[in-house]
C-alpha cells in the first residue's frame, strides 16, 4: 500500500484525474507505469515517435490515426493527464456506480466513445466525414485485395447509407444515427480498464 501511495503522490492532481476518468488508483498506477515505459527519454511527455515505437501499433492499419487522436491539434506532445483521459474513453460503462447529479457527462459515455471513433475519420476536423476521408480509411483497412474502383463504390454506398441530408458527407449526428443499433459500450470498451 505504501508504494501505491507514493506512486500516486508523484502524479499531480491525481484526485481530479481519477474523478474525471473514473479510473481506480490501481488503474492510474498501471497506466502511469506504462506511460513512463513509453517515455523512454524521461521528458514527462510523449511524442508521436514514442507511440510509433510500439511494434504492434505500427502494423495497425489505422494506427497513425489513433496515435494522432492523442495529440490535440498543433501540439506535438501529450502529458500524462491527457494520456489517461484519452484512454478513459475505453473504460466500460459501469451501471453500479452511483450517478452524481450535475456531474458532467463521463468520458466513457456512448456519445464520447462515438466521438472518438468519428474524429479518426474526420482528419480535417470540419465535423464531417467527406468521401475522401472515408476512402482513406477504407484503403487502409481493406488493403490490397480490393481495387480502387471497388473501394470507391464501397465508400459511396457507405455515405449513401448514413447521409440523411444528402450533402454527400457524414456529420457526427448522422454517424451516431447510423450506428444506433450497435452496442457501442460493448465494441468500444476494454475489459481490463474496468
Amino acid at each position, binding site marked *: 500500500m505504501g508504494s501505491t501511495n507514493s506512486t500516486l503522490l508523484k502524479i499531480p492532481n491525481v484526485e481530479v484525474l481519477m474523478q474525471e476518468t473514473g479510473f481506480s488508483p490501481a488503474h492510474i498506477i498501471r497506466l502511469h507505469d506504462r506511460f513512463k515505459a513509453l517515455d523512454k527519454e524521461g521528458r514527462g511527455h510523449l511524442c508521436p515517435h514514442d507511440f510509433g515505437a510500439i511494434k504492434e501499433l505500427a502494423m495497425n492499419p489505422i*494506427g497513425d490515426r489513433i496515435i494522432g487522436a492523442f495529440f490535440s491539434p498543433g501540439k506535438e506532445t501529450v502529458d500524462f493527464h491527457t494520456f489517461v483521459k484519452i484512454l478513459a474513453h*475505453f473504460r466500460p460503462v459501469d451501471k453500479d456506480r452511483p450517478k452524481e447529479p450535475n456531474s458532467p457527462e463521463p468520458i466513457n459515455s456512448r456519445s464520447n466513445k462515438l466521438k472518438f471513433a468519428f474524429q*479518426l475519420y474526420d482528419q480535417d476536423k470540419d465535423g464531417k466525414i467527406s468521401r475522401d476521408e472515408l476512402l482513406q480509411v477504407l484503403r487502409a483497412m481493406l488493403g490490397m485485395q480490393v481495387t480502387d474502383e471497388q473501394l470507391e463504390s464501397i465508400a459511396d454506398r457507405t455515405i449513401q447509407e448514413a447521409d440523411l441530408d444528402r450533402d454527400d458527407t457524414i456529420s457526427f449526428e448522422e454517424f451516431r444515427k*447510423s450506428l444506433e443499433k450497435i452496442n457501442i459500450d460493448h465494441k468500444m470498451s476494454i475489459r481490463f480498464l474496468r
Partner: protein
Amino acid sequence: MASSVYLCLLRAVFLVCFVNPLIQGLSEDESVFQNPHHQQEENLTGLPIVTFKWHHVETPYLVIIWVFVAGLAKLSVVELNHHVISVVPESGLLIILGFILGGIVWGADRAQTFKLLPPTFFYYLLPQIILDASYFMPNKLFFSNLGAILIYAIFGTCWNAATVGLSLWGCYEAGVMGNLDIGLLQFLLFGSLIAAVDPVAVIAVFEEVHVNEVLFILVFGESLLNDGVTVVLYNVFDAFVALGGPRIDAAEIFKGIFSFVVVAFGGSFLGIGFAILLSLLTRCTKHIQIIEAGFVFVVGYLAYLTAEMLSLSAILSITFCGICCQKYVNANMDEKSVTTVRHAMKLLANGSETMIFLFLGVTAIDTEIWVWNTGFILLTLLFVFIYRIIGTFLFTWMLNKFRLVPIEVIDQVVMSYGGLRGAVAYGLAALLDEDKIPEKNLMISTTLIVVYFTVILQGITMKPLVQWLKVKRAAHSDLKLIEKLNNRAFDHILAAVEDICGRIGDNWWTRGWNRFEENYISWLLMKPKARKNRDYLFSIFHKLNLEDAINYVSEGERQGSLAFSRSDEAANVDFKKQFGSEFADVMPNIMVDMSNYELGIEHFSVTSIVKDTIPSVSLDIHGQDRKNAMDDINAHHLLQQHLYRSRKHHRHKYSRSHFSINQNEDEVQEIFQRTMRSRLESFKSTKMGVNPAKKITKHHKKELTHKMPNGHPDGTGHLYGDEVDIAVGSETGAINSTFMRDTYTVGAGIENPVFLPDMDSPTHSPPWLMETEAVAPSQRAQRRLPWTPNRLRRLAPMRISTCSTDSFLMADVSLTLEEHEEHSQTDHVEMRPVFD
C-alpha cells in the same frame, strides 16, 4: 449423390430401428404368409401379370410411410389455425399430434409397435440436427462467448446432474418415494441423463421468440455442448453402476474424471480433424461440383460415427466439425453447392426434428413403459426446475465478474426457464440396461413427463414470459455497410489501445488468432481464389449489391417492364456501372440498332457489337402478365426447341452433372446474330409498307403455341424456323415483333423465305392464311408505316421511362386497349427464352 446416400442411410436406419420389432412380431405371421405364397408359385399355371408383394417392400415402405406421415403432421401443424400456432410452439403441437397417432396405432395393434428406439435416434435422427446447428452457428458470436458457454455446458451440467441425483437420493432415503430399488449411483445416473438441456427443443422454442443474440447464443451453445457433456457423464456413471458401489474407490473416480476429459476433448479434436479433412476435400472438388455438397454430409456423419466407434463424444465431434469447417467449406465450394448444402441441411434437420417430436408423442402411448411413482416424478420435475435456476444464477454471478457486458437478471431468468429437456434425455433413458437398473421404466416415464412438461408447458409460457419481462429482443436490422465498416474500425481501435496500454487483452488474442488463421490456416484450407477475394467488408458490399439488383429487377417487373443489361463477364460490376450511369446504357440494343440503321450499314458484323463496350445481350423482362403462365410455358417450350435444335453439335437436355445446358457463348452469339438479321429483314419489309390485319396476330399466336411444342418443324423448315423464333425471342423492342411477324405470316410483303416455311409448314397451309389475304391493313399497321430510325430514337427514352413496349403504344395513341393487352401478351411470351 452423397446426400442421397445419406438419405438412403436414414431410411435404412428407420427400417432397422422402427420396424425391427414389428418384423419380429410378425415373423410368425410371415411364415404363415409365405407358405401360401410358395404354394401359389408352385401351383402357378400361367404367368401372373401382377402380384402383390408386400413383404418385399414392407420395411422400407413402413419407414417411408412414417416419414410421409411426419411430413403431413408438420404440414398440418403449420397450416393449423394461426392463433393456436402463436400460443403453442410447433414442437409441443407435434408431440400432441404424436399422442393421437400413437393412440391410433395402439388402438389397431393393442401394443405400441412403433417407438423411438435409441439407435434410431442417435444414429439417424440426431446427427443431422447437430450438424445443422453447428454448421450454421454464428461463429464470431459463439467464440466470443465461448467461455460462458463452456462454463454453463460443463459445470452447469455437472451441477444439474449432481444436485438432481443427490437430492432425489436424499428424498428417497427420507422415504418419500416408497419402496424403490434404486441406489445412489442409479440416482446419479438418472441425474446425469436428465441434466442436459436439449438443443432440438431449445432451438424449436427459441427460434419462435426472437431474443437478443447474446442470450440466444448462450442458451443455444450451452444446449449443443452440454449434450455432449451429458452423454459423457452418463457413460461414466453407467460404468460406475456396472462396476457396482463397493468396488468404486478413489482411483476409479479419478479414472472417471479423466475419462470425462478425454472423451469430451477427444471428441472435439476428432471433429476438428474431420473439419480439416472436409475443408481440404472441398478445395479440390472443382470438377465434381455436383457432388461436392454431399461431402459435407458424409464427412460430418463420418465424424459422428468415428467418434462413436472410438467411444469419444460423437455429439461434440460433429459439433466441432460443423463449426470449424463452415468458413472454409463455404469459401471453397461453388455458390450453388453452398445453397444446396444449406437447403439440404435444413431439410434433413427439420425432417428429423419433426420425426423426433412426433415419435416422442407416439412412444408415450404404450402401457408397458408407464410406471407411476408420484414422489419420484414430481420431485424430479421440481428439482430439475429449481436447480436449473439456481445453477444459472450461480454461474452467471461468477461469470459476470469477468464479463465485459454482464448478463442481466432478466436474461438469466429466461435462460433458466429455457432449460428444456428433450429427446436426448429420452434416448439415454431408453438406453438404460434393465438388468442393472430395475426401475428403468420408472426412469423412462419420468423422463418423458419431464420432456412433455418442459417442451409443452414451458414452451407455451416462454413467449408470454419473454414479453412480460421485456427481454431485449433481437434487433431486426438490415445489413448495413457502415455498421460493418465501423465494427472493423472498432476492432482496430481496441487493438491499438491495448497496445498503447501495454496489456495483453482479448483483442490481442483475437488479432493474434486472426493473423495466424489468415496466414496459415486459410492458406492450407482455402482455395487460393477464394482466399483472394474474401475480404469481409467487400463481400458484404457484394451481398448488398446483389440485394439491390434483385430489388431493382423485381421493382422493375412490378412496375411493368424493365430493361436489364448483362455482359458475360463480371456481371456484377457491370451491373453496378449500368445502374449508376445514364439510362441510355440500359437500352444498348436500341442504340446499337439505330446507329447501324442510320449509317445504312446493313451487313454489319455481329462481333463488332459483341465486343462493344456495351453489354452484348439485352433482355426484356415483363412481369406484368404473370397470368398467362400456360402460354408462357408453351411458348417457352416452343422457343427453346427452335432456338437450339439446329445446332450441329446437339447437346442433351438431360445431364447428371450439369444444371446449365445450352448456355454457352456460341449460342448467345447465335441468338444475337439471328436477332440482328431478322430485325434487318423485318425492317426492310416495314419499309415496303405492307402489313396484315392486326387480328391475325391472335390466330398466329395460338397457332404457334399449340402447334409448335410438338409440331416440330421438319428438316427443311428447320433453320428458318429458328430464325423466326430467335427474332421473336430476343427482340428488344426497336421494332415491334408482333408487327414484324405478321408481315411475314401473311406473305404480303417481300417474298421472304426466312419466315414463310416456319409459320405454315409446307404440308398444310392453315386456313387463316387464306382468310387473311383479303384483309386490308389495319389502322394500326398503317400508322406504323412511317417509322424511321429517327423516330425510333425519339421513342427510345420513353420506353425507359415507363415500360418498354407500352411506350410505343403511348406514341401510338389510337391503339385500343385490346390491342394493348394482346401486344404485351405476345411480347411477354417472346421474352421468355432469353430470360431462361
